[in-house]
Each structure stands twice: as C-alpha cells, then as structure tokens.
C-alpha cells in the first residue's frame, strides 16, 4: 500500500460561489478512498473528494496522473474498460454509485459526459441531438428540445438553417459544442467534461468556457483540463492531481483541493505550487 497523503480540505463552498442559495451547497459526489487499477497498474489511489451542486470543479494535473480515470468513475464509464478495477466508495446524492443493483446505464443517463475529441455521430446535426431523447423515450416536443439544447450549447444561431446537414461538416469547435448539446438534450443532472477544449483553437475554447459559465446555473460541472489558465478562468474549485512515484510503483493521487483562487495564488502544498508556477510538467 502506498502512503497517500491526501488532504481533505474543508471548503466553504458558499464563499466561492457568488450566488449560492442553500440548496446549492449540496454535495453531489462524495468520494472516499477511491483507488482504480487497470490490470496490475494502479492509476489513482486513495482519492477523497466532494463535488458540489451548481459549482464548476476543475481537475488539473500532469498527463498520466489519472484525471480521465477519475472522471470516468463518476458515470461508470470505466465499467466498459476490460480489466479496470474500482475500490473505495463513491456516493452520488447519498447512495452508493457502485452498489449492486445500480444500473450503470441509468447512471450514465443522469450523469452526462463530453470527451476530449469531439465525437459527433455521422448523422445530421438535428439527429445528433435528437437521437438520445428519441431512444430514451423523450419523444414529446422533440423539436423544442433540440432547439433548447442547441441554444444552451450556444450553437443554435450557427446551425439553425442547416439542421439537416451532416454534423461532420461542422468545424471542430462547433462539433464539440454539438456534443455538449447532445449531452444536455437528455437532461442529465451532472455534466462531466474531459479536456473538452484541448483540440480547439483559442476562439472556440473561449466559446466553450463562456458556455460553461452559462451551464453552471443548471448543472453540476466537472471539467478535466491540462490548461491551467482555463481552470483559473472557469472553475470555482480546483483539484490538483499528481503522480506519486515510489520504488516499485507509481500512481495518481489527489494533492490539494481548494478554491481555485487559493490553488493558483496561495497553494498549501509545495507540489501544487511547483505545478501552477510552471516549475513542473
């Protein structure tokens, strides 16, 4: 067993979110001692973390430290990876996400995900957004639903005249916003974003960041990014993961979790400071 020195931070969420009504301080994910391994490789170990409602939580850290692994545990996408083993506990709104009898498919419907590389279906723009609701039995007022999702993803004005066009004809940034629209069309409660802007140019990136501020009102957002400026711009809370190496093995650990401004201006851990000041990876 590796020594993990995770710091369980006591954060006053009310202080970091400007318009916090009481309900918004709710804990959505309560994660205890999460350890994930692929076969014999441990990706992350001993992660303790709480994620709050209507707050943007950013996960930062060097590549390979287990950011994707962590976020994919939150909607049970790792179940699809053969050989992935998850230990510890994740409570989602108070109940164990990995309890037997929990249907991972239902979990994924309630907790949406956007991936690093935009992955629209080779269908029309309309069908990309409409397909999920259609399959999941939300067929009523489909046109309105599609429009609403596209508006929420700040894409409506750009595509309203060509909804029947193939989604693959859109630019990279538009495709990624379409993927966000597709994810929110099925009305998830949480949106997980794994480096959603890493393949985009600065203009498209800033469109996505603006969008996140909009979405925060309705959703709980968790965003993985390797771009520290991005975390600083969008996130209320930031968790810094790092690779912990000892003689025999290496695995990702949570080093520090705090208000974004604190992480970037006055971190408590030396490793965080090295990372955010660019002295490391």
């Amino acid at each position: 067993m590796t020594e993990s020195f995770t710091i369980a931070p006591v954060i006053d969420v009310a202080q970091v979110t400007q318009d916090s009504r009481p309900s918004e301080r709710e804990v959505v994910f309560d994660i205890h001692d999460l350890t994930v391994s692929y076969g014999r490789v441990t990706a992350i170990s001993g992660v303790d973390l709480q994620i709050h409602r209507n707050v943007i939580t950013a996960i930062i850290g060097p590549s390979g430290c287990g950011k994707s692994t962590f976020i994919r545990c939150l909607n049970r996408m790792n179940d699809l990876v053969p050989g992935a083993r998850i230990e510890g506990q994740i409570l989602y709104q108070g109940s164990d996400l990995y309890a037997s009898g929990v249907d991972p498919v239902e979990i994924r419907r309630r907790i949406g995900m956007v991936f690093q590389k935009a992955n629209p279906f080779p269908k029309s723009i309309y069908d990309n957004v409409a397909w999920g609701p259609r399959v999941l039995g939300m067929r009523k007022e489909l046109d309105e639903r599609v429009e609403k999702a596209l508006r929420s993803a700040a894409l409506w004005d750009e595509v309203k005249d060509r909804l029947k066009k193939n989604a693959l004809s859109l630019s990279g940034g538009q495709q990624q916003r379409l993927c966000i629209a597709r994810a929110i069309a099925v009305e998830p409660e949480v949106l997980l974003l794994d480096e959603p802007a890493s393949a985009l140019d600065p203009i498209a990136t800033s469109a996505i960041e603006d969008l996140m501020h909009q979405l925060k009102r309705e959703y709980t957002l968790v965003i993985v990014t390797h771009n520290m400026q991005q975390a600083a711009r969008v996130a209320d809370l930031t968790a810094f993961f790092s690779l912990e190496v000892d003689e025999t093995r290496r695995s990702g650990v949570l080093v520090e979790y705090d208000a974004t401004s604190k992480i970037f201006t006055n971190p408590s851990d030396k490793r965080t400071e090295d990372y955010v000041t660019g002295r490391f990876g």
Partner: protein
Amino acid sequence: MSRYRRRRVMNRAMEVLATVAALVAVAALAVVVISVARRGAGAVSWDFFTKPQALFGQPGGGIANALVGTALLVLLATAMALPVGVLTAIYLTEFAPRRLAVPIQVVIDVLAGLPTIVIGIFVYALLVIGHTQSGYAGAFALAVIMLPLIARATQEVLLLVPGTLREASLALGVRRWRTVVGVILPSSVGGILTGTVLAVARAAGETAPLLFTSSIFANTVQTDVTKALPNIPVLIFTYSEQPDPALHQQAWAAALVLMAFVLVASLAAKALLARSRRKLAR
C-alpha cells in the same frame, strides 16, 4: 557505400518481381476470360436468356430456367446467411467476452476453409437422404458457404467504426444493443453489403454442393423450392459431359454469363466499399 548500393539493387529487384507477379495474375484472368468468351460467345443470344433448356437431342434452347433457379437458390441462401452472419459478427465484436470470442472465431475460420464438397455431403446427409433433393437443401448448402464470408466482412467493418462513437452513445445512457442498432450498424451497412455481394458472387458459381442437393434436368422454369431446382453450375457440369458440341458451346456461354455476373458483382462491391469508407472517414 556498397551496402547502400546492394540495398538499392535489392529493392529494385523486389519491385520488379512483385510487378511481374501482379502481371501474371492479370494475364491468367485474361486468358480465362478470353478463352471462355471465344468458345461461348457464339451461343449468347436473346433466346439463350429467355428460353428454357431444350430436351436432350433437340436443337436450340437456352438457360432461362437455370438462371431463375440459381437466382432463387442464391436469394434463399442469402436470406439464411445474411442475418446469421451479421448477428454472429455483432456478437463477436460488440458483446462476446474474450473466452467465448476466440473459439467462435476459430469455428468461423474453419467453416471458411471447409471444402465445398464436404459441405455438400454434409447437407446431403442432413436434408436429402430420406427426403428428396430440394431447393431448400441447395440453398442451405450455399448459405453455409456464405456465412463465414459475410461474418468476416461484417466484423471487419464493425472494427472500423471508431470506439469514440460507441462511447458517445453509451455515455448518453443508451443500452449497448440500441447503440449497435442506432449508431454502429448505420455506419457499417456499406461494408456489410459489400461482403454480402461478394459472398453472393461466390455462391452463385458453387457446383459441388448443388450436385448433391439440387441437380436436376428440366426443360421448364421451376420455382418450387421444395423440389430440386435447375441451376447454372449444374447445367455447365452436365452439358460439358455430353457428346453434342452445341451443348458444349452452351456450357461455355453459361460460364461466360456466370463470369460476367461475378465481375459485375465484384465491381459493385468495390464501389460500395469505397463509398462506405468515405462515409466513415469524413
């Protein structure tokens, strides 16, 4: 320096060798096509396609009944092999755990390598002994030949579908089978059709299994699949054994028709595949 030269010469030699080999393959095909055409083209006429076989000893006649029979046999065989082949491929690529996928894959590979005469005897023992020869039995034998071809072709296109599309659908909370039907299959139809067309081309010319299951001489068009159906390969086989040179010519002509069909089918399959590749790559 000399080593560099040697490599260059070697490279050149291999290139020439490969080109020659390709030319030999093309030449072999050309020889076959030309010799079949030379011997058979004279018998090809409108009547040849529209008239049924003449009674033995009588002049004239065509291959209409054999064409209809072959079409029926292949259609029926496709109806059996296509769903099973596609479902097998879907199971293998999308659902099967490794310990099941490996043995099933081996079975399919063995099936693909089975001599068709063995399949013929097997179906003969299963469906013909104790009953009669029938279109069903013939189609079943052809389906056994087509099944591994369709399954393999389908597997190949399914593996071309990027994993990120599967993830996108599953992350919406869509079940796996729904993902397969709604996202994966639509992007693979082209490839599946291509594989099917090639399997049809292959099955249309198979003789051995039909000799056991559906070999009959008839001078009328028959469509009752519970009885043996006249068909092109068996017609070619029987005519070529007759002493009458007119029948020989008809056998060559029928072979020409079969070859033309295979050629057209292969070209169509290639076009289909190119189209579906483009669609996936975009």
